[in-house]
């Protein structure tokens, strides 16, 4: 046994390796993305016989993992909460059919929406699908529950959801690690259409069997000592996930005595243990992230055992349904439970809020040298060239780095919702009556993920629509994962490259490829294409600059000729480029940051920006 400092995501990978996982698939998405690279790194270093891939989208990842689990292999499939929405169709179906090898679905939620998604409580997917769920509270717990999930899934033949939230997934803690398991299983999939097709199956029997499995899995979870109950006095606290660590911190810090129950699994519900707690206390506080799921179940149990006691939580406003829990609101909820003030340290006797107001807000921007900055600049100029104002032409956006086109100074985008939605929305605006041109923009990975069906739809019925694919060869926002366009797998080994232009041309859309750093030429092309009839595709192709720099490709930086510069600030105002510094009213380019893209030189009205001499 050795101790490692691992994040929650890495601890799940560690647990999977110790459990003998053989197939790992997923699609990147914050806060889940670190699991697969960490695992792949170990697979490579230790030369393990494990198949691991970034799939084209979450549903495909889920389908691949399902077949492998039906073949007797242990499988792990990973995604963020929004990804589980995409994969949920398969999830809900296959829970009824069961699995042979252990199948763990790792999904991460983001209470507080740090990664810019909506608040989504993925525990509801356990309730809707009847796939059992485990809810770890820290990295060590995440590893432990991963191993239990594989064991239980294989034994009871049911896929299990393992759910983390940001403060578990991204927290690093000490994890006790064992050896990787190398018990590889033989491929075995026997034809059994009665089970593996939905149409032939006795679906009522499958449902009955599934409910029976729930009873069995709860017994198994009890054997694993999950959902630990500790009765001390008549104050009861039930907590799950990261909130459990807040509770432990506060108990330890203030030396409190409380009766506690850690919920590891909301489904199946540990009715007996919850009942036992209710019997022994006069009042209960429920602490969980996101929606009051445990709280509702606790109230159900109070009704079942006919002992109605006060339950403090989100429904009475003790805790909030918006954002994350934290030590402060958990401490104040506990204060309310035990009627005693709990405060950590003394405040400084000065108005900190007034001082805090001196923080300057930061807007997000594209990286120095990002080709997307150039593409959106080109789109804005093309719109102007056609005689329109920017707020007349609908430009829909999509997920990933390209979404930053919504920010100042470019402000090109009008909408940004879900993967691939840019094209469906753009078509929808057209048929709803938008008479002026409509433009959809999306990145390459997003195009492959879910951009193809809406393009086919628009083509089938026809409309005047311009689709611009900002193709930078990588899934950059989530950490430079390869996609079908990259020509590499996640080990950096060559894989087949799927051409976006051949797909769009096959659909029937005239397609043209532009180079975003050829600004003037591209403005003319984009303006011309926008004004044409029908569904057209423009691919703005340039590799992600951060990847280029990593490969050692860096253009000569630009500099600002201080004698020529009139200090108009157009270079900074129009680009928000992180390489441009304003220092005592002078504009300078930081040559450590500049990658030599030249957009600022194109913008400078008096040609004061030039390339540095070697």
């Amino acid at each position: 046994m050795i101790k490692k400092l691992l994040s929650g995501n890495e601890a799940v990978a560690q647990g999977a390796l110790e459990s003998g996982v053989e197939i790992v698939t997923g699609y990147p998405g914050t806060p889940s993305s670190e699991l697969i690279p960490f695992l792949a790194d170990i697979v490579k270093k230790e030369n393990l016989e494990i198949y691991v891939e970034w799939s084209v989208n979450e549903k495909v990842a889920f389908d691949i993992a399902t077949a492998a689990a039906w073949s007797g292999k242990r499988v792990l499939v990973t995604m963020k909460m929004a990804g589980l929405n995409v994969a949920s169709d398969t999830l809900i179906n296959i829970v009824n059919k069961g699995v042979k090898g252990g199948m763990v679905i790792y999904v991460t939620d983001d209470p507080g929406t740090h990664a810019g998604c909506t608040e989504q409580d993925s525990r509801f997917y356990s309730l809707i699908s009847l796939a059992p769920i485990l809810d770890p509270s820290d990295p060590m717990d995440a590893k432990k529950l991963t191993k239990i999930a594989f064991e239980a899934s294989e034994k009871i033949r049911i896929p299990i959801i393992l759910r983390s939230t940001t403060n578990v997934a991204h927290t690093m803690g000490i994890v006790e690690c064992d050896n990787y398991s190398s018990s590889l299983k033989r491929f075995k999939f026997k034809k059994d259409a009665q089970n593996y097709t939905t149409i032939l199956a006795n679906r009522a029997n499958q449902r009955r069997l599934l409910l029976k499995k729930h009873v069995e899995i709860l017994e198994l979870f009890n054997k694993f000592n999950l959902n630990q109950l500790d009765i001390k006095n008549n104050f009861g606290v039930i907590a799950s996930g990261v909130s459990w660590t807040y509770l432990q911190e506060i108990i330890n810090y203030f030396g409190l005595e409380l009766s506690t129950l850690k919920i590891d699994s909301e489904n199946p519900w540990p009715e007996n243990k919850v009942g036992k707690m209710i019997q022994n206390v006069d009042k209960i506080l429920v602490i969980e992230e996101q929606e009051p799921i445990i709280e509702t179940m606790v109230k159900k149990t109070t009704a079942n055992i006919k002992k109605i006691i006060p339950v403090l939580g989100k429904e009475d406003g003790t805790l909030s349904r918006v954002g994350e829990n934290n030590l402060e609101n958990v401490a104040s909820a506990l204060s309310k439970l035990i009627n005693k003030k709990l405060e950590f340290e003394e405040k400084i006797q000065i108005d900190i809020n007034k001082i805090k107001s001196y923080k300057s807000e930061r807007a997000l921007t594209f990286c120095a040298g990002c080709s997307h900055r150039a593409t959106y600049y080109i789109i804005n100029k093309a719109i102007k060239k056609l005689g329109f104002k920017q707020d007349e032409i609908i430009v829909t956006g999509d997920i990933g780095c390209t979404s930053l086109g919504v920010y100042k100074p470019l402000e090109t985008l009008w909408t940004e919702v879900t993967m691939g939605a840019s094209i469906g929305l753009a078509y929808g605006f057209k048929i709803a009556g938008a008479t002026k041109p409509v433009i959809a923009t999306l990145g390459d990975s997003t195009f492959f993920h879910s951009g193809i069906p809406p393009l086919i739809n628009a083509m089938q019925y026809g409309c005047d629509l311009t689709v611009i694919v900002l193709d930078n060869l990588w899934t950059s926002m989530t950490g430079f994962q390869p996609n079908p366009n990259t020509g590499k797998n996640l080990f950096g080994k060559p894989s087949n490259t799927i051409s976006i232009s051949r797909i769009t041309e096959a659909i029937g859309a005239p397609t043209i490829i532009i180079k975003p750093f050829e600004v003037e030429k591209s403005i003319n092309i984009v303006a011309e294409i926008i004004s044409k009839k029908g569904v057209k595709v423009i691919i703005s192709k340039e590799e992600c600059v951060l990847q280029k720099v990593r490969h050692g490709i860096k253009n000569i930086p630009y500099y600002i000729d201080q004698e020529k510069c009139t200090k108009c600030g157009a270079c900074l105002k129009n680009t928000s480029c992180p390489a441009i510094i304003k220092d005592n009213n002078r504009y300078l380019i930081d040559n450590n940051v500049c990658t030599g893209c030249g957009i600022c030189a194109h913008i400078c009205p008096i040609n004061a920006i030039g390339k540095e001499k070697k």
Partner: protein
Amino acid sequence: MKMIYNVLLLGTGGQGIITLSKILATAAMSKNLKVIVTQKKGLAQRGGSVVAQVRIGDVYSPQIPKYSSHSLISMDINETFEYLDYINKNSILLINNKSINDAVLLSKKDKIQQEEIEQLQGSMNDNIVFIDTKLKNKQKDKSKGANIYILGVLFGMDNRINSFIRKDDVISSIKKNLKRNTELNIELFNKGIDFGKGKINKQ
């Protein structure tokens, strides 16, 4: 009183916040101490903030309680403000008095910002140090290594952290975590310690 040391590390992408958190965590682990590190690095390269919380000792929560951070290292003055309610009168604040990334700052006010933070001096034992991190070293990028230098200042000034991990533990940890420019970084760490000790003597 529980045996805990909390440090908040603040900055933006590329300022070495994540590296500092790794160095501290590795050093704590080498002493068999419990350690929890939380990193928030959403969209760092694209102008977002990077925050790391390092907690050593008798800890459970990934988050430092408010008013309970023993020290705060801020590599960018503008990033300091959001976390001011994590400090108390005994906290040590080490702040790089420059703000980077002009492009994404919607208003720039370094000087006023420094004056505002200085108001705290009186109510917190004069433990605020502004540090000019344009270091005199041989590297092309003069800001490289600034994080390690400031870490040194902390070890020079704060006896409390020294009761958990010692200077030599940090040096071994730097060797493990920084494969490039190791010697230069150790030199910067030592220089930071000297600077930090000087700050104590003045008080």
